């Protein structure tokens, strides 16, 4: 059995934005990963729309929700007075948010380049699609770890 902990009401809005941003971010990366997997497995006609959709999903849903998640994290961190705390769970959160930001930007650029290449040469190789897909898998794995760190808060 565990005792409930009540947090102050003024923490709720930044927490909502942080969690909702993280959820939409994860969903966007899952959809982009699925579109890239389908593209790799597809014939020529389907490759372009799938890779282009993955690119647009990362650009218009993934990156904005990453900004909301990270901005709200900073907001709630200041409300909780955690700026100077050296906790493991915060470290994992920072590493995932900031390392993940770099990976999502690279995956977005690669998906964009891959979609341009496929549009001009539908029979061409799909190395950039595959690298972008691999990066989305790494991101999903990192987000699963981050959810664990944020909920269990290991010291």
């Amino acid at each position, binding site marked *: *059995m*565990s*005792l*409930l902990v*009540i947090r102050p*009401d003024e923490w*709720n809005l930044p*927490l*909502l934005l942080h*969690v*909702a941003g*993280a*959820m*939409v971010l*994860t*969903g*966007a990366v*899952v*959809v982009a990963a*699925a*579109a890239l997997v*389908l593209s790799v497995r*597809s014939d020529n006609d*389907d490759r372009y*729309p*799938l890779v282009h*959709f993955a690119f647009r*999903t990362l650009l218009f*849903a993934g990156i904005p929700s990453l900004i909301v998640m990270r901005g709200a994290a900073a907001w709630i961190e200041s409300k909780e007075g955690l700026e100077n705390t050296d906790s493991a769970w915060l470290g994992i959160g920072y590493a995932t948010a900031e390392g993940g930001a770099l990976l999502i930007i690279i995956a977005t650029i690669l998906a964009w380049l891959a979609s341009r290449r496929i549009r001009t040469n539908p029979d061409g190789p799909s190395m950039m699609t595959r690298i972008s897909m691999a990066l989305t898998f790494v991101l999903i794995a990192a*987000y*699963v770890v981050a*959810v*664990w760190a*944020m*909920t*269990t808060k*290991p010291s």
Partner: protein
Amino acid sequence: MDWYDTLLYLHVLAAFILVAANVTAWAMYVGTAGGSRPSPLVRMAPMGGLLGVVGSLGVLIFGIWLAIYVKGYEVWDGWVLAAIVLWAIAGYAGTTLGRGYEAFRAGEAPAPSLALHLILSGSILLLLIDMIWKPGA
């Protein structure tokens, strides 16, 4: 990591999976322009359905388990009952969407409506608000 942490992690992870199912439904809606054009994105329908089943069942099972396990919460608390009602609404919308996209993919029916997508997203958003504010707790 104690038992409470494990239950909370699984509950929250299931919520993330449920939202991923919701984003998949929106991807199919946007990709097909509301069903007005064919798109290979409808091949995501089985994945969306699987994510929806795993996420919604996980949220419910681990959520009720937490309500029983944590001293101070009860399953009959107002905010928990509200969450169960919202879960049922989301489950209805999600199941209808999943079946709808499978039928659309097979060419047997038009794509699911925008209203169903909005009901699913709205109920999940209200669930999240309910979980964070816990009104009456």
